[in-house]
């Protein structure tokens, strides 16, 4: 079991990376009035047919060759089901995949979101040619960061994985999320 939802997110993003995605969106929607916590991972990777979508819910299925179990999706699904929620997968071959994890926000078994800054920095460090959008909604407030916008400012000479740039991204997200959580 993962201690933080942000670790599940990191794990699911790796699936999108393996599916050849070039743009991956991480959308978190928190709503304290309607009491839900929703995580959406959307990619433009190869996508899956219906048969494969069913298979990946099974822990004894994986596309990897080094071992026989694939736990990413089943672990996230179990985490949702513990919290009066569910996990849905929509996918289309050649279009991409949308994984949505739904939790009851106030459920006592819902793991904390944890450190999204660390998750975002880790995914950025993964493959330089993939772009990421992280959108976080809290009731009616919203924070967004889009690596395409950052790369446009940085140009070709400065890499997004440059330590000084990462330090800026770290503070930028921290500030943004801090703003969201203020009442």
């Amino acid at each position: 079991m993962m201690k933080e939802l942000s670790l599940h997110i990191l794990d699911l993003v790796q699936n999108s990376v393996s599916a050849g995605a070039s743009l991956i969106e991480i959308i978190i929607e928190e709503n304290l009035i309607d009491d839900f916590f929703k995580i959406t991972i959307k990619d433009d990777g190869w996508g899956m047919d219906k048969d494969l979508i069913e298979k990946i819910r099974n822990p004894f299925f994986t596309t990897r060759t080094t071992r026989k179990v694939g736990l990413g999706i089943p672990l996230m699904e179990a985490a949702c089901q513990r919290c009066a929620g569910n996990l849905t997968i929509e996918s289309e071959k050649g279009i991409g995949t949308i994984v949505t994890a739904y939790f009851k926000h106030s459920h006592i078994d819902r793991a904390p979101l944890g450190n999204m800054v660390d998750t975002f920095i880790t995914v950025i460090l993964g493959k330089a040619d993939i772009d990421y959008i992280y959108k976080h909604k809290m009731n009616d407030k919203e924070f967004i960061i889009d690596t395409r916008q950052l790369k446009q400012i940085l140009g070709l000479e400065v890499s997004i994985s440059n330590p000084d740039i990462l330090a800026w991204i770290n503070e930028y997200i921290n500030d943004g999320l801090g703003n969201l959580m203020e009442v």
Partner: protein
Amino acid sequence: MKSIQELEEIRKRTLDTINVRKDRSGTRVVVGMATCGIAAGARPVLLAVIDEVKNNNLADVVVAQTGCIGMCRLEPILEVYKPGEEKVTYVKVTASKAKRIMNEHVILGKVVEEYTIGASEQ
């Protein structure tokens, strides 16, 4: 509050230091980031490695991520590839172990034997 405009200034500052970084064949540090690695604590390990690269200004060190290499029980796993030397595999790594590996092995060239896969299997 950080603004997007600041990024432009940082870009200008870093441009000057970047030319030094090119055409050096350096050390590769690879962290396993599959489900098994992440669940075992690979994220803080990767970020500790990045921190050491930044703090020590290790311009010639490349940090990369890899998937599951089939030894899930030994995760988090960190591999160090130095040019002309054999690969060293470290197992059950934590952020503080990663810090020591960076300082002793990557910077000073001395393998931290006690954290290697060889030592763990004995």
